[in-house]
């Protein structure tokens, strides 16, 4: 068994006992990347020498008997919207093609403190807006299970990276499903923590009340390992919650007794692919065989999730992305410095408009326009305020459901990975990808995608568990129970 097919948890133990060095481990992953990255295209930036140097430093410190952090020597790939000092951070946007952050995001600082080896930057939909990674201005990432298919998005590069064994751990961000959906489509584990569980400081903001950073891994215990490092209060992020962080790593293998899972009947309507439906039903039977009780719960407003999300997220995005003005960082259109044309617009406004026009792709422009429209005078009450009220109702649906159950169980997506180019011209169809995931972001609850089967065409299927806020411990333990009873997570694509 190759070292790269072992879990990060096992690799960590092997390094602790001296069976393995970080240079050996990192070299093994770099070799895998060399042989398969040209087919997958998961990374937008990778500096092999820098990565190996970091691994060598960990080995040297270990040999000297220095105390090391919890991820010492383990490679971690990072989505390209997390600021890392001195390393290009582009959000897969032309606008930020030359941007080099002068500081580290809190999660990056935490990975460094934990002595992880940062192994490259992963592709994504531009500014995390999309569900296929086709909105990247840099490249299209191919799903390792079928190179003609999309890997999901927006954290498609991180998902493909884990599925292709390019790294054992990766970071993604999830605003409406951007960790869980690509995790499901690539057959890996992806966890969106509760809102406020992980600091967003240094994450290039898309929709600030919805964004969360989380782990993408090939198994549940590694998700626990990575979340343990990421979670916790941060004074740099006023929305990070000062709530105790449980011992995820220690607890993850402990099964839950008297587990009650909730099913939402509306999830199993006409839109759900028949193969996915039967895989989820099978997953439910696995839980029943493990002693879980299944209850039907009502989520009367869940079906309004997409409409609510596609008002709130673009409104927040239009405000957040106002910072990309061509004045302080990013690309400035080069024709705008002189005021030779006599138009009604001043030169500064022309600089803003032309720089943003040249730097942003279609989907980003669409969401900025939608948000600006929905927030504009005369429409604010009809759209934004209305959506915030429905958001409250969706949160109340969750509150009511979690009175009777421990976790919700259901599908992550309505369909498996689809062909490249198939959906990209139809924004509404692409938005529907988030149908089963957005409500968790709107309500601030945690969700995890766990491999639970394959279609006849050999594409992965994920099931979703969701917990009340700050119950990631329960979420991980329940996910591990399922993983322990099945072998879906051990399958690997044959790229």
């Amino acid at each position: 068994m190759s070292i790269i097919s072992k879990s990060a948890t096992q690799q960590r133990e092997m390094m602790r006992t001296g069976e393995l060095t970080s240079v050996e481990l990192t070299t093994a992953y770099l070799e895998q990347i060399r042989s398969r990255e040209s087919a997958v295209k998961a990374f937008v930036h990778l500096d092999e020498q820098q990565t190996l140097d970091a691994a060598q430093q960990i080995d040297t410190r270990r040999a000297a008997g220095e105390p090391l952090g919890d991820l010492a020597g383990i490679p971690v790939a990072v989505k390209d919207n997390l600021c890392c000092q001195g390393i290009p951070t582009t959000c897969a946007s032309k606008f930020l093609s030359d941007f080099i952050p002068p500081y580290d995001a809190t999660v990056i600082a935490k990975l460094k403190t934990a002595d992880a080896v940062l192994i490259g930057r992963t592709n994504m939909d531009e500014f995390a807006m999309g569900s296929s990674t086709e909105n990247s201005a840099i490249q299209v990432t191919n799903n390792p299970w079928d190179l003609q298919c999309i890997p999901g998005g927006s954290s498609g590069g991180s998902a493909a990276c884990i599925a292709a064994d390019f790294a054992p751990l990766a970071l993604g961000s999830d605003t409406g499903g951007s960790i869980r959906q690509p995790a499901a489509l690539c057959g890996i584990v992806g966890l969106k923590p509760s809102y406020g569980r992980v600091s967003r400081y240094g994450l290039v903001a898309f929709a600030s009340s919805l964004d969360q950073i989380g782990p993408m891994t090939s198994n549940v215990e590694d998700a626990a390992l990575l979340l343990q490092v990421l979670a916790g209060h941060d004074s740099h992020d006023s929305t990070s919650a000062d709530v105790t962080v449980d011992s995820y790593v220690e607890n993850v293998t402990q099964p839950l007794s008297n587990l009650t899972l909730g099913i939402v009947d509306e999830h199993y309507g006409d839109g759900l692919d028949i193969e996915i439906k039967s895989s989820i039903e099978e997953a439910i039977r696995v839980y029943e065989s493990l002693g879980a009780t299944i209850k039907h719960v009502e989520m009367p407003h869940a079906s309004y999730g997409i409409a609510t999300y596609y008002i709130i997220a673009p409104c927040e995005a239009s405000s957040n992305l106002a910072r990309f003005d061509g004045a302080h960082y990013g690309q400035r259109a080069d024709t705008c410095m002189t005021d030779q044309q006599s138009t009604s617009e001043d030169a500064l406004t022309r600089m803003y408009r032309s720089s943003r026009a040249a730097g942003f792709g279609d989907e980003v422009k669409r969401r900025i326009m939608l948000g600006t429209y929905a927030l504009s005078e005369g429409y604010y009450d009809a759209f934004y305020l209305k959506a915030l009220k429905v958001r409250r109702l969706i949160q109340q649906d969750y509150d009511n459901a979690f009175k009777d159950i421990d976790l919700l169980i259901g599908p992550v997506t309505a369909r498996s990975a689809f062909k490249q180019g198939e959906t990209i011209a139809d924004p509404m169809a692409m938005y529907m990808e988030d149908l089963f995931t957005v409500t968790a972001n709107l309500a601030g609850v945690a969700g995890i995608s766990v491999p639970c089967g394959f279609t006849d065409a050999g594409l992965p299927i994920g099931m979703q568990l969701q917990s009340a806020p700050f119950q990631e411990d329960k979420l991980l333990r329940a996910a591990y129970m399922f993983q322990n009873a099945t072998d879906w997570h051990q399958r690997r694509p044959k790229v």
Partner: protein
Amino acid sequence: MALTRDDVEKVSLLARLQLTDDELNSMTMHLSQIIQYVHQLDEINTEDVAPLAHTLDITNVLANDVVGECLSRDAALQNAPQRDEECFRVPAVL
């Protein structure tokens, strides 16, 4: 409620985006579709529902007024598309 091309052009100024003729046409079509879809929220009675902008109960955080670490001027200016000594350079405003 259909969105017109004129509406979209006005919003593009508010959003500080310069859109081409083709973009204005496709944007009008796509935004109209999305707006039409989100109007399904009108089915829900929200009369006595308080808006929820944020899922956490956020309390105001006060910090002591002391000088902490911050970026150097050079670091803050390092990504400037154009700089002029200590400033970001932009087209003449006045």
